[in-house]
């Protein structure tokens, strides 16, 4: 009985993961991430990796929205910040426990996403990009205005630990594993959504909205749904981020943070959920570890070098580093790979090439 189950499990594991090179690579990389703490890393690197996990969720959620539906949002920090601020306010001012505050943060981010989705339904292209970029700035202005409640520029500090009952020495380890599990779960969910029936419908909206309407697709619902799913995951990342740093500030709504999601995703490969995750890890490690600990660069030069590297890489591989790697593994010919993955950002690219 048990052996049958084991054999069946092994067969499906072998056919679905080991036989597909890219999935095998993803599997091995996640094993690596699980095994990382065994190396007894210093605590700051573990913190960097913990934050990279959250950033990866954030970037992947942005990718689902933009890579699939093509609604270019440059204000994804809105949901991250709403998650973080809700969590912090409820935790510090009202005294709710951790799990309640995180759920409330996610719920509010979801509500905000649905609201934003219905509001910006008619706005398209560069207009949408700039409007979505304006929303977090407006929210941070409101937060500054009501600074008695929200703490204004100084933000709110003194949130409770994510795991209050765990002893101090194990805290960072527990937080690392918690965020890692969350990352793996969200990555699988987002990837499944992106490649499900719904994902295909979303791509069809991206390709031609009028035609998908003519096919009987309720474009409004699907657009709002994509934004809502993406908002839920961004809000989740924001809430947990607040509990890990145990303080929040307006930095959580800053334009830089929205652009971090964009940079990480484009760097990794837009439209592939794994691209944003890979980009998040590479960029976090480059920014917080390589340029500080390995090559000690002065603070002013660090941001400069880091942005310059990113610009050069984006111009070199406009379709993303992770996509480049998977294409190498899959050995797709140039034509086919462009044909296969539709989003119009490459449609234009294709037009130029021919």
């Amino acid at each position, binding site marked *: 009985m048990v052996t049958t189950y084991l054999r069946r499990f092994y067969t499906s594991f072998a056919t679905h993961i080991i036989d597909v090179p890219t999935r095998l690579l993803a599997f091995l990389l996640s094993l690596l991430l699980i095994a990382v703490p065994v190396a007894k890393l210093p605590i700051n690197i573990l913190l960097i990796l913990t934050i990279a996990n959250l950033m990866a969720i954030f970037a992947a959620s942005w990718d689902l929205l*933009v890579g699939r539906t093509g609604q*270019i949002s*440059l204000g994804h920090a809105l949901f991250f910040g709403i998650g973080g601020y809700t969590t912090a306010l409820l935790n510090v001012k009202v005294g709710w426990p951790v799990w309640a505050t995180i759920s409330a943060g996610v719920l509010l981010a979801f509500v905000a996403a649905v609201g934003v989705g219905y*509001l*910006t339904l*008619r*706005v*398209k*292209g*560069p*207009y949408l*990009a*700039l*409007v979505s*970029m*304006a*929303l977090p*700035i*407006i929210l941070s*202005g*409101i937060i*500054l*205005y009501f600074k008695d409640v929200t703490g204004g520029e100084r933000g709110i500090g003194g949130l409770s630990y994510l795991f209050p009952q765990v002893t101090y020495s194990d805290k960072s380890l527990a937080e690392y594993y918690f965020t890692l599990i969350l990352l793996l779960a969200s990555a699988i969910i987002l990837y499944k959504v992106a490649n499900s029936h719904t994902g295909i419908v979303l791509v069809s909206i991206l*390709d*031609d909205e009028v035609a998908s309407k003519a096919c009987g697709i309720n474009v409004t619902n699907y657009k709002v749904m994509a934004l809502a799913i993406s908002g839920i995951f961004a809000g989740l990342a924001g809430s947990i981020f607040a509990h890990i740093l145990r303080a929040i500030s307006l930095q959580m709504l800053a*334009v830089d943070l929205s*652009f971090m999601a*964009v*940079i990480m995703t*484009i760097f990794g490969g*837009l439209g592939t959920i794994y691209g944003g995750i890979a980009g998040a890890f590479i960029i976090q490690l480059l920014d917080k570890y390589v340029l500080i600990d390995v090559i000690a660069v002065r603070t*002013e*030069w660090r*941001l*400069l070098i880091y*942005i*310059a590297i*990113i*610009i050069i890489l*984006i*111009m070199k591989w*406009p379709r993303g580093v992770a996509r480049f790697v998977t294409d190498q593994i899959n050995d797709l010919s140039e034509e086919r790979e462009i044909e296969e993955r539709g989003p*119009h*950002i490459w*449609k*234009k*690219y294709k*037009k*130029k090439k021919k």
Partner: protein
Amino acid sequence: MFEEIIILGAFTSGTLALLAIGFSLIYGVAEVVNMAHGALFMLGAYLYFFFTAPPPYPLQLDVIPAIIIAVVVTAIIGAIIYRLTIDPIIEDLVATLVVTVGIAIIIQQLMLIQFSATFRGLPNLVEGNQVILGVTVSNSKILAFASSMLIFACLYAFIAKIKIGTAMRAVAQDREVAMLMGVNCERLCMLTMGISASIAAIAGILITTSTTGIAQPLMWQTPLYMSFAIVILGGLGSIKGSLIGAFIVGYTEIIFKYTVPGGSYLTGIVALAVMTSVLLIRPKGLFGKRVEMED
């Protein structure tokens, strides 16, 4: 208070228009949302400071040559930025946005390295005040307003009358057909970017000297938000639209400053809120050109 709102609103709006037309121009011709516009604004102000500043800095030029050199240098830098970074990826909206924001951050860091984070006072262009209808307005504000209107008129004439302006309109209408008619699109877009950058630099010098008089490395953000609020409000790529947008935004801001307690916290925010609400009613701004549909 009513007179103050009317007069100061007019002057603020007039100078804001200068900020926005550069942004609108480059979108109209090359369809590039240039997030580095604020950084070019800052670059203009800093170069002006560099050329006029006292001894630790090499040159102590007069005001007029300093402005001219600063504007020309910014225009060249803008054209180089276009050629090297924007042109290769111009097809891709998201990549353009990311790369131009990256360039803005690089310029910010370079300014931080060169001039450090301290506030640098810019020398005034003109001194003194005038009293108009019982409201005191500084001469530098009047100068900024007048030059803004002058540049606006020049640009309008340039686009309407000169051959290159006609080519610009042709490219804005249809890039491929303009190419078929023998317009060298890349070079034209580079030139447009140069003009846009030089207007940004002039705006940087005039607006900074007529308001705060201070240059600091983070000063690119507010002008950028203001310019995109104005430009989106008026419709991307429409020059008339950005003038009207500037007046709407300028007046709203002044009204908020004078009527709402603690309104100065909200200045930048109000502009963006106005922009958002207009877009919800008219998704392409007030005078926007038709957003090109895919195929």
